């Protein structure tokens, strides 16, 4: 896998005259804040982690009511013997006893004709062994997909940074496909299929090809497969590997991450705190799910995109600039702990300062350069203005131009293309075309301007970057003193107060017993396929 970030921006730290000791301190504070959460995550499992395990072992499909078999099976196991030991032991024990395959066990369980137990001793080790063999099939498929991606990228090469990221969102996968292919032909390097509003709150992953969604298309294994196949076609036609993105966030992070690995998606939105803050998902549920899903992404060679841009849509982009930095550092810590490498960290940030603020462009440059300086090897995800897009499309087009220019000057790795009709309509064909013209104009005329762009060491931009870093360190110190969970409960991020004992999906969090077994987690921890 090729690194996408040009080394030429690596001197941003020196340009801004950031103190290396301060940066080290910020990272060490992020580790201190995150470590207790990781250990909490390791002590728990969730219904979605257990369902993901079954999906990796190949359990697909749904019953007549559309409830996935993984949900039916996990629910029955939980009802009968609990999930404290994981789903694998009771399920593979039942398979050994009945000589049935996984789907039959699921169907029998749903019909109420199967009694589960927690095997012990020799029977437990046997069930553990076969469950590991079952799940390793999924791991091998994820590994093969990663190899296949590397092969295709080797054949076509990577596009130059920034990668142009475009969104499709019709609600109908069969409408999305031609739109995505058209967007790729128009120049998109990355296609994101926006999910249907509300999917993040479903405690199951819908099945099959779907044709109706609100403001987006459901993330399903079949939709993933169809879109990846279509983009493979288009990649071959264009001689350029077109990446596919979807969203892991929500109540089913581990499952969606697994499906993405199984169907060779290339990027996933995966933020450590987004679900907590913006979907009111229970913090513990989120951190457990997030860790498992990121381990899968690490294994699958998937680039994650984090969601710091969202904070700035609720909080003020100047006042809260340092919360973005803090979140980036936390996301980096959690990501690396889960095995992701620098090139996989599409840390998010956004151009969301109120444009009437004097010097707003200089402030944006300071924030964007700070992110570049702190994470020189990460392909940062640069998000366009949305909050202050008003319906004045002419002003919006100019605003997007400045966003693109800031992206060019600060070496952003993934550029989400801004639409002048943001806040008006879901993008039209012409909106996308105009937006891409905007990007091309800026990068054609000023793409190399960063070579000449050296903010004065004691000028406005460098001072602002140092100030934000300082505020980030102060905030991290407070977070470490209070604990991260308390900081989240106090409304530190995005002004949203989310206590650890509340929120959606809490009832799906289970404390592990001492005999807990999860073959998927073991294979991920060990980094092996069998």
């Amino acid at each position: 896998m090729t690194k996408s970030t040009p080394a030429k921006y690596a001197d941003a730290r020196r340009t801004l005259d950031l103190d290396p000791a301060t940066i080290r301190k910020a990272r060490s504070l992020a580790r201190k804040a995150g470590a207790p959460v990781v250990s909490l995550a390791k002590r728990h499992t969730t219904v979605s982690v257990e369902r993901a395990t079954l999906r990796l072992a190949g359990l697909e499909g749904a019953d007549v009511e559309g409830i996935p078999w993984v949900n039916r099976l996990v629910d029955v196991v939980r009802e009968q013997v609990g999930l404290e030991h994981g789903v694998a032991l009771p399920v593979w024990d039942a398979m050994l006893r009945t000589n049935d395959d996984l789907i039959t066990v699921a169907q029998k369980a749903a019909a109420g004709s199967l009694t589960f137990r927690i095997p012990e001793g020799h029977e437990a080790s046997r069930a553990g062994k076969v469950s590991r063999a079952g799940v390793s099939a999924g791991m091998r498929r994820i590994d093969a997909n990663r190899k296949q991606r590397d092969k295709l990228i080797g054949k076509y090469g990577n596009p130059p940074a920034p990668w142009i990221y475009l969104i499709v969102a019709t609600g109908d996968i069969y409408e999305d496909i031609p739109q995505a292919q058209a967007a790729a032909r128009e120049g998109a390097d990355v296609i994101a299929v926006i999910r249907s509003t509300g999917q993040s709150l479903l405690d199951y992953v819908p099945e099959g090809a779907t044709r109706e969604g609100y403001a987006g298309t459901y993330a399903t294994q079949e939709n993933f497969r169809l879109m990846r196949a279509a983009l493979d076609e288009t990649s071959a036609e264009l001689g350029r590997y077109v990446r596919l993105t979807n969203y892991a966030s929500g109540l089913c992070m581990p499952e969606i991450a697994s499906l993405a690995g199984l169907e060779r998606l290339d990027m996933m939105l995966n933020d450590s705190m987004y679900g907590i803050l913006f979907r009111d998902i229970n913090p513990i549920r989120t951190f457990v799910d997030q860790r498992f899903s990121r381990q899968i992404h690490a294994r699958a060679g998937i680039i994650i995109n984090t969601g710091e841009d969202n904070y700035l849509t609720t909080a003020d982009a100047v006042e809260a600039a340092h919360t973005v930095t803090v979140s980036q550092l936390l996301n980096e810590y959690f990501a690396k702990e889960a095995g992701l490498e620098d090139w996989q960290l599409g840390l998010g940030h956004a151009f969301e300062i109120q444009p009437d603020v004097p010097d707003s462009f200089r402030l944006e440059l300071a924030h964007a350069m700070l992110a570049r300086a702190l994470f020189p090897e990460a392909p940062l995800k640069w998000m366009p203005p949305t909050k202050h897009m008003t319906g004045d499309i002419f002003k919006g087009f100019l605003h997007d131009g400045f966003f693109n220019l800031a992206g060019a000057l600060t070496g952003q790795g993934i550029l989400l293309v801004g639409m002048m009709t943001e806040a008006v309509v879901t993008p039209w064909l012409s909106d996308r075309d105009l937006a891409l013209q905007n990007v091309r104009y800026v990068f054609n005329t000023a793409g190399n301007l960063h070579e000449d762009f050296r903010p004065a060491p004691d000028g406005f931009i460098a001072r602002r970057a140092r100030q934000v870093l300082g505020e980030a360190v102060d905030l991290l110190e407070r977070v470490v003193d209070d604990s991260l969970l308390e900081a989240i409960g106090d409304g530190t991020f995005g002004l949203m107060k989310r206590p650890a004992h509340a929120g959606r999906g809490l009832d799906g969090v289970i404390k592990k017993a001492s005999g807990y077994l999860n073959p998927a987690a073991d294979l991920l921890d060990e980094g092996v396929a069998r």
Partner: protein
Amino acid sequence: MSASTSSAKAAKTIVRPYGDTTGDGMVQMSFTLPLPHDKKAEGAALQLAKKMGIDPAMVVHAKAMGPDFTFFVVYGSVQHLVDLRDVHVVERDYPLLSPKEVNSAVKKVLRRPLVVVGACIGTDAHTVGIDAILNIKGFAGEKGLEYYSELTVVNLGAQVSVPDLVEQARVHKADAVLVSQVVTQRDAHLHNTREMSAAFREAFPADKRPLLVIGGPRFDESMTVELGVDRIFGKGTTPGEVASYLVHSLLGERKKANRP
């Protein structure tokens, strides 16, 4: 010069778009036709403009977007006239109050905080609108309702189900319920609003029902009766307008009800 000015004033009930000369009727528009870019496509764009009442029309820009589509920018003079006597809008029918005036009115008349419960309902996850009105941060330089000392604000956030909203309104003894709807795909905002107002009508006797206020960028402000709500606020509404309306509507009625 003076003659034309005075005649323009006299004819102020009839207007046409203004480009650079009174009465020139100039408009600009852009659109896409599902045609490859060629002479015929430009002719098609002109014909469309003409049918829209733009005559003469000029295709000032035409650009192929892939092999099957062409984007056009058209300028021209529109033949239609607008008669202002036939234009009907929902004008603000309440006085704008400052936060101080709102607080003192609530204190004086209600003698307890006025409770506002807000939410985005259905699958809508876009809290931008409700947050702009409720969060202390506010919108357009005005502080949100949380800033008002005599208002108690309960912001339930995104994706709240209608039964939950009704329940929370009951628990908090809401005087007013504010609902924001941004997503309009398949008229979701209209369906959700109707469902919400019906649920409140069912759950509360008419005189106990909280004031139902909805807001969103794509609502028609005159649809209150059709949607079963008390007030609709459109794009650009500020917290101060909402607070003033609440005072006008809730305290005004109370005053009336208390009369012997």
